[in-house]
């Protein structure tokens, strides 16, 4: 079901958390609300499920205005960060709870619970209490409980935050599999760009109560609208250097480095201060523009090495390359960068 937030605002007392936010989630889509903590992404989620009353604007599920309905009548499934499983009920009772509240007949409840337990692979755990389950199993139960009522939308609030690294990897693909199998519209709230990129069709990246950019993960990675977006996506993260437009080229400040303006950017007038963003994977032996510097740090990552290179002016760029033995600490290097992969931003952070 299509979800639409129309000029949605939310304040707590005098504190405005979200102002005039408009966001559309397409039917069957999985959208990530990505942003640092405190940016208002969880607030948005709680407004959609009705736990928080909105201060302004409307919320539509399909064509239906849900703004003034209590959460009990919105038919949303929520997976909370802590899972919020009912500790006094066993797994089957937990999953059945939304159906029991709706007074469905017992046989029907049992059928739906079994079906859902099979979908999330917890059929053998139905008699257990939540306290007897591992984190991943609890996660699956929470998913099953959220999905069993066939909700209009599935809301996931930092669902992987409480899992250890290995389990997180497993549940990432599991949640995506289940979302695709059920074809449900889903919203994932996360601060982890890897989760957002790997699980979702589109990402809405938020900062300070604003949506900065909405795009597919690939598009957002390739085409960040601001330095914030560019800095938030990518691991290891992008590096920025300050530069100035000069003679149709970009001259890095206090350094003998001149980079061409990438083809998709408007050439700024001479003397305009700019910020250049270079992703680690785009700096290396290949490319059309030369960058000189000194290797200041090498981090071994197994398959690849991450090299920090310090420019004359003291700023640091990162380069990720396959492991090579010919480079060691403090070497002077002359590497290249592909100019069509450079991002050029204005001083205020907006992409040029």
């Amino acid at each position, binding site marked *: 079901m299509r979800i639409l937030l129309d000029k949605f605002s939310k304040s707590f007392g005098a504190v405005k958390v979200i102002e005039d936010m408009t966001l559309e989630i397409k039917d069957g889509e999985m959208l990530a609300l990505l942003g640092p903590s405190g940016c208002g992404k969880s607030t948005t989620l709680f407004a959609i499920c009705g736990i928080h009353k909105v201060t302004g604007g409307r919320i539509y599920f399909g064509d239906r205005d849900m703004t003034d309905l209590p*959460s*009990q009548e919105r038919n949303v499934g929520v997976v909370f960060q802590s899972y919020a499983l009912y500790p006094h009920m066993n797994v089957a009772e937990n999953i059945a709870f939304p159906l029991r509240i709706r007074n469905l007949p017992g046989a029907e409840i049992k059928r739906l619970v079994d079906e859902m337990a099979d979908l999330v692979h917890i059929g053998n755990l139905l008699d257990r209490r939540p306290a007897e389950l591992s984190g991943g199993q609890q996660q699956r139960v929470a998913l099953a409980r959220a999905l069993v009522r066939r909700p209009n939308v599935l809301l996931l609030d930092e669902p992987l935050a409480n899992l250890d690294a290995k*389990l997180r990897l497993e549940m990432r693909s599991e949640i995506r599999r289940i979302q695709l199998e059920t074809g449900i519209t889903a919203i994932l709230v996360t601060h982890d760009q890897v989760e957002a990129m790997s699980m979702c069709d589109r990402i809405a990246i938020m900062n300070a109560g604003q949506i900065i950019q909405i795009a597919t993960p690939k598009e957002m990675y390739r085409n960040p609208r601001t330095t914030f977006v560019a800095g938030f996506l990518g691991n290891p993260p992008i590096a920025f250097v300050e530069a100035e437009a000069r003679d149709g080229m970009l001259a890095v400040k206090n350094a003998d480095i001149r980079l061409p303006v990438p083809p998709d950017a408007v050439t700024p007038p001479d003397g305009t201060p700019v910020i250049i963003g270079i992703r680690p994977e785009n700096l290396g032996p290949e490319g059309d523009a030369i960058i000189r510097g000194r290797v200041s740090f090498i981090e071994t990552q197994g398959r690849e090495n991450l090299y920090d290179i310090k420019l004359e002016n003291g700023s640091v760029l990162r380069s990720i390359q396959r492991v090579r033995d010919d480079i060691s600490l403090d070497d002077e290097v002359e590497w290249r960068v592909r100019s069509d992969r450079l991002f050029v931003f204005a001083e205020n952070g907006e992409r040029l």
Partner: protein
Amino acid sequence: MSASRDIVESGPARIGTRAAPARPRFAWLNSSKGLGLVLIMPALLLVIAFFLAPVILTGVFAFTNMSTATGITGGAYQISPGALRVLTDRYGMGELAERLGQPTYVVDEQGLAALAEMEIDQDIIDGLKRRLGETFSSRRDFERVIRDLPTRPNTRTVKRISDAFSRSLANARFASAGALMSAAEAIDPELTDDEKAALREATYTGWSWTTDNFRRLITSPQTMRILFNTIFFVAATLLIFNTGFAMLLAIATHYIPDRPAGIFRIIWFLPRISPAVIYVLLWKWLAWDTGFLSAFLDNFGIRPRNWMLDSAFNAWVFVILINGFVGASMGMLIFASAIKAIPQSLFHAASVDGAYRWQQIRHIILPHLKWPILFVTCYQTLSLLTSIEQTLLSTDGGPGGATEIWSLAIYHTALNNYAGNLQYGYGAAMALVLVVIGIVLSLLYLRLFNYRALIIKPRIEH
């Protein structure tokens, strides 16, 4: 401090040689066990002095018939009308009782000396001296003997003579059993051993060991009434206030904002922290025939009366209200904190799962309060069983014993008896029963609150 440093310096090898001469006399103080014992000693002594000793003494007194009449020290032997009645009723020795109660006429030296003092004619004295040792059970027989004497005294003199020989044990008091026996044998030399024992027991005025208290407790119809009153009192107060009303308050305050909820809780806490006398006095003022209720209802033409003691029903209403408002605060506090401990996300989850407020109460709050409810129930049962001050101050068991509960009955029996005869022994027996009930319930509850049952054993698989 220095002790622990010693151990560190000497190293683990020395630990086994603690008793070596290097260790001074108070070495045991350096062990945590010894020091712990010293530290706990004051508390231990207090427990022994103020809990254990009274309980044991209660147990001892319960097997005596101590009362104001017997005193708590020893007693004497008195052939009182009461004692004779006991002899008749309990031992079936009516004949003996009658003999001891009736005056008997014994011709003895003492009587003869009295006659000499009365300046009775020497011939008469000599005549009676010949019959020394004879006993007459009726005055008429004896006087006939006197009249038959050769000097033939006139009727007035005969009466004076017979009075001098009248020997009665009625109301006689003896310091020891031996004195009693010799006096009794003087009257009736053929007393059997059974009769002697019965006499000794019937006439003893001090306390003695007995299990009669419990027999009386079981057979007395009063016991059943007090027991029923107590059960009703505990159950009603517990159900309506200590858990029911407390739960209502806790749930209500959960759903209202923090500040008003806090104020609301403090108000309900006032009965608990105000002195019992003042608290009950306010209730009495409310219910007096010139108090608030009467004055207010007077406006509607309702006759002023003491609403509290007007009827048994009213008395119960007030007793339960007064005790309940005191007890509700504890349950409220425990339930409120238990509800606060429920993660907010569970309420959120229940909301999006479609549960409205009353369904949340039913499915989320109540299951979480299972243990607090059990705890409050158990704890308050015990405290209500022994609670006395509010009831004592308000109705004092009235009207007509309608609100007499067990603890109050103990007080009335042993310490504040209307008839004036304080029955320590019987009261102690009642108290002992209460102590036993309390201990049995405590043990039961301890089993119920078994920690192993409280903690679910996790069986985590990854």
